[in-house]
């Protein structure tokens, strides 16, 4: 999957080739460094796709497991963070297709950087999270993949197993719903 490269984790330095070799050889200490460095990114991706903390933890764990198993296949054509980001997205979407759970009540999780929870234009992180939570599931996942992670529609269709036209309609409806909820929140 192609993805927007403007995220914070894209700025994190990649693990050194020596660290990756050690992790791929089964060195638990080297893999722990990878988990500790990228756990916030992987968990955030899973949470944004799934909208449930328990599911997000399971999917994030699955993403790291896939990372561990596939480490020998990693090639440096993509940065490590981008490669892991794609694994995390795929693990979360696969989890979504496999498990159907009722989303938990909205509760803003803690942020790594509490100072940056004001998103501009009078929109707070809590308002976005609440608006995303209120979206029907069918709209939320394609909208998250399109407007948070910048995936092309075709790739969203492939990832979710839905027709391209349906995915576009879902994203358009998801945006319309978010737009109305966020503007209503600003006006109140």
């Amino acid at each position, binding site marked *: 999957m192609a993805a*927007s490269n*403007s*995220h*914070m*984790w894209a700025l994190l330095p990649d693990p050194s080739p020596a660290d990756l070799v050690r992790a*791929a*050889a*089964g060195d*638990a200490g080297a*893999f*722990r460094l990878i*988990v500790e460095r990228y*756990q*916030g*990114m992987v*968990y*955030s991706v899973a*949470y*944004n796709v799934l909208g449930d903390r328990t599911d997000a*933890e399971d999917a*994030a*764990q699955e993403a*790291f*497991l896939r990372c*561990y*198993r*596939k480490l*020998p296949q990693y090639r440096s054509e993509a940065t490590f963070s981008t490669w892991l980001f794609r694994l995390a997205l795929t693990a979360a979407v696969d989890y979504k297709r496999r498990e159907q759970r009722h989303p938990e009540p909205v509760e803003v*999780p*803690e*942020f*790594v*950087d509490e100072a*940056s929870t004001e*998103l*501009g*234009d009078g*929109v707070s*992180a809590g308002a*976005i*999270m609440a608006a995303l939570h209120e979206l029907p599931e069918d709209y939320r996942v394609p*909208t998250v993949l399109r*407007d*948070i*992670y910048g995936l092309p529609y075709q790739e969203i*269709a*492939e990832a979710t*197993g*839905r*027709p*391209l036209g*349906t995915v*576009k309609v879902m*994203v*358009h409806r998801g*945006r319309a719903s*978010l*737009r109305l909820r*966020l*503007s209503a929140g600003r006006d109140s």
Partner: protein
Amino acid sequence: MDCSYFRERLNRYVDAELGYLEVAELQQHLSFCPGCAVELAQLGEARTALARWGRLELAPPPGFAERVIATVGLEPAPGAPKPFGRAVEEAFDRLDEALGRVPLPGGRTIPVKNVIGWGLAAAALIAGLERRHGRRTRELKPL
């Protein structure tokens, strides 16, 4: 043309999917229609907020890294020989990555491994039926 014609195009406009003639037509409409202009601005604000939200990093639950390390600790080293089931699963994953997905009528797609799985299941069913049919034929054969 009424506003519904243009409002239907706002999403394709922000996705850069409109042709230049459609863009010019829409921009001309926006220049004198405050309602559509406000809708476009709100759409842009919502998308900006989503993009910024996506850059926030959520803190995983306490002990998450330890649980991941404990789970990974139960795994064989990535390069070590794998159990047969895992090796088959990974071979199918690689096949999926190489061949992509199979298009179905209606625009849906399914992974190649599902097609192979159904093919193998159908072949096994047919082979089983044929063997059963053959045995019954032999049983009924007059001496």
